[in-house]
């Protein structure tokens, strides 16, 4: 559901960027917003993945309600942090900063939604910002778990904790946190397409 490989992701984006930059694309392609159709297709597949996965509800029962607090803490902490970031960044308003943070690492979905509502500039910030979150989790899960406990890599991974960053989280935090990571990532993944537009409207 999330990106395959950060390097390929950057490469594909840059390839499209250069094609747009040097107007190598027919104008109907540029005007038909094909990225939106890709976005809808992606959301549809997210839905299929959730519908086909019956384990999510069983996990809540087995782990009790406390597991719900994990994505809740990720949401609260991310919004608190990105809200504070807007104070440091004169060009970025509070709602813009919150919306970028509200991607929770889900760069593909959040960047397209933000470009659509707020323009390409903030969309690009969202893409880079959320991609950085994934990359940080991929490279720093070990030290994060050692310093801040086994939930830290799950929190850092955000929405990507369910797939892309799951292997490194499990290696850093232990097998018993795989379920927590998948659950938290899944909740955040579903929330991204709703939270991001909502925050932009604040």
């Amino acid at each position, binding site marked *: 559901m999330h990106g395959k490989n950060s390097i390929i992701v950057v490469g594909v984006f840059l390839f499209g960027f250069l094609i747009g930059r040097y107007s190598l694309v027919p104008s109907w392609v540029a005007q038909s917003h094909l990225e939106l159709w890709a976005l809808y297709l992606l959301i549809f597949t997210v839905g299929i993945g959730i519908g086909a996965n019956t384990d999510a509800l069983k996990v809540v029962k087995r782990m009790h309600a406390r597991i719900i607090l994990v994505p809740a803490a990720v949401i609260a902490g991310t919004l608190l942090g990105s809200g504070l970031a807007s104070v440091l*960044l004169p060009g970025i308003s509070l709602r813009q900063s919150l919306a970028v943070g509200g991607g929770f690492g889900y760069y593909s979905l959040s960047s397209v939604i933000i470009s659509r509502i707020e323009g390409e500039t903030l969309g690009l910030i969202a893409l880079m910002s959320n991609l950085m979150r994934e990359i940080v989790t991929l490279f720093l899960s070990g030290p994060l778990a050692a310093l801040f406990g086994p939930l830290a890599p799950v929190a*850092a991974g955000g929405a990507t904790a369910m797939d892309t960053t799951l292997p490194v989280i499990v290696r850093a935090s232990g097998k018993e946190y795989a379920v927590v990571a998948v659950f938290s990532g899944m909740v955040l993944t579903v929330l991204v397409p709703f939270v991001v537009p909502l925050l932009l409207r604040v």
Partner: protein
Amino acid sequence: MLYVTIILVAGVAVGIVVRKKRTFLYTLEKFVPWIVFALLFFLGVSVGLNEGVTRSFSRLGLQAFVISAAGTAGSICLSVPLYRFLFRQKGRM
């Protein structure tokens, strides 16, 4: 946002129906990265067409970094008390 809700709910409904069709789900899973690539490619095109963006690239990168670092740090900060008070005391999970 209405579109998103409808598409997501439709996807969940299809997912429930095809739950047992492992080969279909497996094929779909292989297909998803290509959708992400298409999405990023076309996003790249629309960003490339926007001249204001290309001129201020390094400033945007710095802003992205600050928001990313602050948001990630914030979520890690809240994960610490959550682990101490709710996960650790129950012993092994």
